[in-house]
């Protein structure tokens, strides 16, 4: 095959930028003598329209199969070189400017030698490349939203209003979630019913939204774009279509088993709590004039197809009972903030007389033994609730015992208002609550600012309890295969893709991701909805560059299945592992981990890397100079190396860099091959552990390299010949220093005895 393919090599002098260091003419002359090279051309601006036209003409004239472009970094001028008249996977870029001429301008002689070595390596790469054509995969453009709270409702509306179908499922009888239970929203102090009603009317009026209440996920199968979801719906016992809300059943029921919708509810149809029903009682079903009640209705299972899933499972209040010193559940008048919200909403008499009230902040939150994180909203909630008391009755005395008051952004106004109103803020958390006289709570707190102890007796103590993920989250994790962080919130790459879970096509919105207030929940719902729509649009045509398993080599050890950070692998019908084109994010961690080197990414294969290593002239700088082969991660290290070029930071020309998607892509077999053919040092450069975009690529690379250096030790070779270094995007100086230091070390070590 090698003899038949026609390759064109195109050099750019970059208006002298490259040429002033490397003699491009002689490189071109030399290259034209290599086998398979059909066309060689040099241009001052290879990215100019004329030059591109010339390449395209050459493709037609000579029938070129492959193109090698020796110019700037592959991250520059991407668009210009994207369409040269052949499949873009048959075009390879040699980074002649950023990683050769500019960094070795002080050593033109060796720079030319390195340039030649680089050309040979990438010539071998392009020779062995495969053409990849986008494939069409039908994506079901309907979304499933799990959780009918503020986040879920808003995400559903956002998606539906762009013309896509949405199924919103809620495990409770009515939509609204926790926000519907609130008395007032901050900072504007409007009742939630106002905003909720608007949302509900949007749901009612939009035919794209379908709502299922008292429904839960049973199983999720299929793959992104085409999830198959089995939903279990518990019986409501009232037919939603028939019921007219006449209320006859409600007046009749002796057991109060009819759950009647409150002022603003969706759906505004009652339900029957069968647990409260008296045996054999059938009165409501008999009286119902429209025959809407079926007391023997059973749970239903339904199958749904969904292209993408948004998780908006919300939160649960922390139960403060385990913090025994606060006496929650034991002492009267010690309530949580959620309970106080209900008092504020329903027991108006509470505010008739002036009260003495105390709020205790950070109950459970920021506590190593309970919720290690800050629950984000409790400060604002307590201030708001304190204002209810103070504003209803200015003679009330209200204390807030805090650790730190956190009212970020505009909420500071709320804090200032509270201070002005006369609410007393004490820095110092009480240690225990007592009840020395009935209906009163006694406690002492140390005011750390005043340096004095306060003894206080109040009518009520409100514990500002935080948010925790719902009980069912781990269960959901098992069903969907998402990952959770150490606090059981849904994990994401918070900085770059907060709305993405670690599974393709599954997004998260609202408090299931992290504690947040209503406004941020709505925002997060918006981003999740946008991401869902993007997913629908982008996934219709996909380049099949996902890893393929060589089934002739594979012995089904299942390591790829275990290590894949995105759980993209499953078994095919013959029992071999197979990556799902929709789930895969092309990190190549499987390719790096495969003990038999049987897995290859579409655009960079094990065979290709192996041929490239063979093509390295190990003595390109002479017999005494060590050479380093570097595998640079695409996101960070390769770009840091490019930066070094842009800044003109110098490092020795002993280094040859190859770009890989992730540090985890590099297979041990490739490293072994490089060492055994005489490469003196291997450098794998990736991001720091916690910054890896592919979750654990760098960490795995490190572990694998340790294994290899142990093996080198057994072979009486220096274990330092392979090393991992973490280079962040902005650490170009560190990159140059690393190479300089490594070359020095390798010189001391002496040349690789395996070099011929």
């Amino acid at each position, binding site marked *: 095959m090698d003899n038949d393919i026609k390759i064109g090599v195109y050099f750019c002098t970059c208006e002298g930028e490259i040429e002033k260091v490397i003699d491009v003419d002689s490189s071109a002359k030399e290259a034209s003598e290599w086998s398979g090279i059909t066309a060689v051309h040099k241009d001052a601006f290879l990215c100019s329209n004329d030059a591109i036209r010339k390449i395209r003409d050459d493709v037609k004239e000579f029938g070129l199969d492959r193109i090698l472009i020796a110019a700037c970094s592959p991250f520059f001028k991407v668009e210009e070189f994207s369409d040269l008249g052949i499949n873009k996977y048959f075009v390879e870029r040699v980074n002649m400017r950023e990683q050769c001429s500019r960094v070795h301008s002080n050593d033109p002689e060796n720079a030319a030698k390195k340039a030649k070595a680089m050309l040979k390596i990438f010539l071998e790469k392009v020779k062995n490349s495969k053409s990849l054509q986008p494939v069409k995969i039908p994506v079901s453009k309907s979304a499933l939203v799990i959780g009918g709270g503020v986040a879920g409702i808003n995400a559903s509306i956002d998606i539906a209003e762009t013309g896509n179908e949405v199924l919103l499922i809620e495990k409770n009888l009515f939509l609204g979630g926790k926000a519907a239970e609130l008395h007032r929203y901050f900072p504007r102090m409007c009742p939630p019913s106002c905003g909720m009603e608007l949302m509900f009317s949007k749901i009612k009026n939009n035919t794209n939204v379908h709502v299922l209440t008292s429904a839960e996920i049973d199983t999720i199968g299929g793959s992104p774009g085409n999830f198959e979801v089995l939903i279990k719906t518990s019986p409501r016992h009232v037919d939603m279509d028939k019921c007219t809300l006449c209320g006859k059943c409600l007046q009749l029921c002796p057991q109060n088993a009819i759950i009647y919708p409150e002022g603003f509810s969706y759906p505004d149809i009652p339900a029957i709590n069968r647990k409260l029903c008296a045996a054999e009682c059938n009165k409501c079903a008999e009286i119902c004039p429209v025959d809407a009640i079926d007391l023997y209705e059973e749970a239903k299972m339904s199958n749904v197809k969904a292209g993408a899933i948004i998780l908006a499972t919300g939160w649960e209040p922390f139960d403060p009972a385990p913090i025994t*010193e606060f006496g929650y559940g034991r002492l009267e008048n010690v309530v949580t903030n959620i309970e106080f919200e209900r008092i504020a909403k329903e027991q108006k008499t509470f505010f008739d007389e002036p009260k003495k009230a105390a709020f205790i902040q*950070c109950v459970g939150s*920021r*506590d*190593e*033994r309970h919720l290690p994180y800050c629950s984000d909203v409790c400060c604002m909630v307590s201030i708001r609730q304190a204002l209810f008391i103070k504003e209803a009755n200015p003679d009330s005395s209200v204390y807030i015992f805090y*650790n*730190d008051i956190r009212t970020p952004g505009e909420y500071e106004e709320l804090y200032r208002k509270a201070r002005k109103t006369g609410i007393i803020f004490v*820095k*110092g*958390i*009480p*240690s*225990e609550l007592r009840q020395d006289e009935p209906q009163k709570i006694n*406690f*002492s*707190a*140390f*005011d*750390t600012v005043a*340096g*004095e*102890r306060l003894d206080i007796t109040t009518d009520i103590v409100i514990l500002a309890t935080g948010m925790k993920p719902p009980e069912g989250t781990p269960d959901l994790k098992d069903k969907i295969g998402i990952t959770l962080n150490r606090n059981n919130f849904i994990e994401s790459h918070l900085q770059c893709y907060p709305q993405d879970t670690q599974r393709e096509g599954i997004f998260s919105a609202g408090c299931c991701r992290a504690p947040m207030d209503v406004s941020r929940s709505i925002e997060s719902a918006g981003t999740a909805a946008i991401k869902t729509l993007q997913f629908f649009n982008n996934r219709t045509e996909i380049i099949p560059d996902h890893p393929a398993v060589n089934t002739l080599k594979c012995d089904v050890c299942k390591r790829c299945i275990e290590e894949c950070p995105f759980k993209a692998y499953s078994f095919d019908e013959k029992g071999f592992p197979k990556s799902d084109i929709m789930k895969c994010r092309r990190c190549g961690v499987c390719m790096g981990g495969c003990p038999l080197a049987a897995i290859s990414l579409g655009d960079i294969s094990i065979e290709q890397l192996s041929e490239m290593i063979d093509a390295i002239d190990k003595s390109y700088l002479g017999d005494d100079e060590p050479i380093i082969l570097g595998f640079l991660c695409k996101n960070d290290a390769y770009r840091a190396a490019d930066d070094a070029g842009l800044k003109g930071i110098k490092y020795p020309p002993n280094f040859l860099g190859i770009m890989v998607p992730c540090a985890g892509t590099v297979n041990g077999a490739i490293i072994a091959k490089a060492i055994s053919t005489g490469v003196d040092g291997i450098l794998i450069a990736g991001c720091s552990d916690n910054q890896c975009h592919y979750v654990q690529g760098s960490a795995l690379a490190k572990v694998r390299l340790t294994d290899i250096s142990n093996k080198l030790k057994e072979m009486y070779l220096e274990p330092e010949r392979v090393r991992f270094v973490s280079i962040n995007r902005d650490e170009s100086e560190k990159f140059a220093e690393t190479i300089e230091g490594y070359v020095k070390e390798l010189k001391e070590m002496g040349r690789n005895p395996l070099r011929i």
Partner: protein
Amino acid sequence: MYSYLLDKEKLKCCYQCGKCSSGCDINRLDGSFQPHRLLHLIGMGATDKVLKIDSLWKCTTCFTCSERCPQGVKITEILWLTRAFAFKSGCIPELAVIQRDTLLKSGRLMPVDNKKREKAGLPAITEESDVAAQIFKIAEEKEQIL
């Protein structure tokens, strides 16, 4: 060594919420003993100052603060260590010296007041105890085993 031990006890995690001082029974009786303040000073590196604070010796080691600390700071242990360090560096309150001598001499923490005993109709105690010597002997044996 001292700072190493303190690090281990998560001293640096203290948020100064004051829950330790709020719940401290000694603080209730004597406001000068403020565990959170001692922790703050130790954390700031003002150890020399802390060693000379008399109230350091008032802790009864009831462990309430350690039990309730939201950050899991081992407050009692830290104060314990600080006392040991103070003792080593010679910052010993007078009372502690008396207590030590009494303990070594008689095996009791409090000196015996025979006049009071007489008033109460109790016989006088004169003999010296060898409890301390015994304790030291046991300690030496243990040390050898370890």
